[in-house]
């Protein structure tokens, strides 16, 4: 559940919270693009560090750290899989595994962490309402915007419901932590089925309630609040595009010159 904690919005006032979601999304896309472009460790470390000021400026350190902790298990899996599979595929009889392999696996892991980091910043600092508004003003059909914001808004509700269901099944003697790996996964069936069924029921009820409140009666909806691009937004947009251009430039012309870190560090130690 802790991964979701990292994506749960809390109403705080900060310069980052007030940025236009569209621009913030541009920023996330830029980070995403750069992270996918490089598979060397150094640029990914830089990318990771660049984002830390955002977290501090938004004052969401606690939640952010929690989401990072939530992602740590997956990150570990990614590292292990990358490391083991590449080792057995490329280097197997040779021992120990080369340092470039280690660096490659670390880079892949860090890529995942950077992605989680940027998405977590985005969702931690953007209220579902503003997100919906941003979609609407980007000319996404209102039905889709509504479906999206509703989905986001119901995540905490579902999390709470999952907790109740877990309690109810525990009270019937279900022990989630019992048995081997397969058994443990099977243990979650009594929790998932009621959760899915009630989510479907809830959505049907919500649909009926909305229809009876004249949802979709007019095609031209107006909004009480309208998003406007302001100075801070321009700055972030310039930063994002600048980062992207720089990254593309490095990727095109200097890719081969990016130093690998592990030889660098070990060389210094010697």
């Amino acid at each position, binding site marked *: 559940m802790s991964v979701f904690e990292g994506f749960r919005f809390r109403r705080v006032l900060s310069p980052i919270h007030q940025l236009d979601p569209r621009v913030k999304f541009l920023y996330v896309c830029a980070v995403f693009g750069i992270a996918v472009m490089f598979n060397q460790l150094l640029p990914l470390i830089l990318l990771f560090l660049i984002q830390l000021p955002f977290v501090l400026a938004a004052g969401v350190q606690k939640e952010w750290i929690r989401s990072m902790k939530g992602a740590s298990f997956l990150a570990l899996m990614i590292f292990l899989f990358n490391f083991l599979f590449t080792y057995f595929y490329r280097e197997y009889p040779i021992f120990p595994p080369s340092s470039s392999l280690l660096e490659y696996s670390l880079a892949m892991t860090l890529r995942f962490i950077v992605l989680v980091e940027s998405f977590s910043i985005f969702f931690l600092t953007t209220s579902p309402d503003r997100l919906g508004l941003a979609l609407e003003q980007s000319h996404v059909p209102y039905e889709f915007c509504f479906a999206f914001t509703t989905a986001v808004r119901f995540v905490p509700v579902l999390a709470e*419901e999952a907790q109740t269901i877990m309690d109810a*099944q525990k009270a*019937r003697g*279900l022990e989630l932590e019992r048995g081997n790996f397969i058994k443990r996964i099977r243990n979650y069936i009594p929790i998932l089925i009621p959760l899915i069924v009630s989510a479907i029921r809830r959505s049907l009820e919500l649909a009926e309630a909305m229809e009876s409140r004249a949802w979709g009666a007019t095609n031209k909806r107006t909004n009480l609040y309208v998003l406007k691009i302001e100075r801070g937004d321009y700055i972030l947009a310039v930063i994002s595009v600048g980062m992207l251009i720089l990254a593309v430039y490095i990727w095109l012309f200097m890719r081969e010159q990016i130093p690998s870190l592990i030889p660098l560090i070990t060389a210094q130690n010697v």
Partner: protein
Amino acid sequence: MIEVKDVYFTYPNNVEALKGVSLNIRKGDFVAIMGQNGAGKTTLVKHFNGLLKPTKGTVTVNGVDTREESVAKLSRGIGFVFQNPDNQLFCETVEEEVAFALRNFGFEDKIIQKRVEWAINLLGLAKHRQSSPFMLSGGERKRVALASVLAWNPDVVILDEPTIGQDYQQKEKLRQFIVQLNAQGKTVVVVTHDVEFVAECNPRVVLMAQGEIVVDGDAKHVLTNAKLVTEASIVPPQISQIFMGLTDLGLPFDIIDVYEARDILLDFLGGDL
């Protein structure tokens, strides 16, 4: 049997739900825990089977501190029927659903069969045994949930809001059923804000408000005490309201039983039936 000693409980979001609650439930008791929404009723009973552990204070069940035992182990002796049956039903048939807990507790197949049979008949679900729980009506689903708990024959049965969503006839059946369970020696704890239901059951009433126990006494005493009732934001049963308004006629005010009321009124009118 269940001993709650000076228990405080604070939820992770810093809501203080219980503030120094002490309560002793003895074997064979029939207790109704009442109070308005958010008074801490459900939070309190969730301590009885260890779903919640006290932030401060202790809860002991048969001498065992709930902090030292898993929910599954405690549940063997304490059956908890949740408010919303949809939070626990997941099997393909009613039979499977009732057998689920028995499997978890490691009963033998033969005994499981017997117990399932017994529980299904007890709650009048025989003709639905092969139906999917999801196809049943709200009241029937509630009964399946109840059957699935009674099947393992726990010493204590906790029912969270059993009357919600039940029509009057179902409620009456449920009342008779609960009274019967209690008469057979089961300890019954009911969480509810249905005063009429409590008035008809006439149990020991624990009245809660804002995370504290306001009073702990018999139903007649608690439900007809205007001061206590206002403090806990509940409304006395209708029959008591009538008698509270008729005290000028020299009638007693502390009446919660309809039959008793009828006798008193007949007596007062000098009539005979």
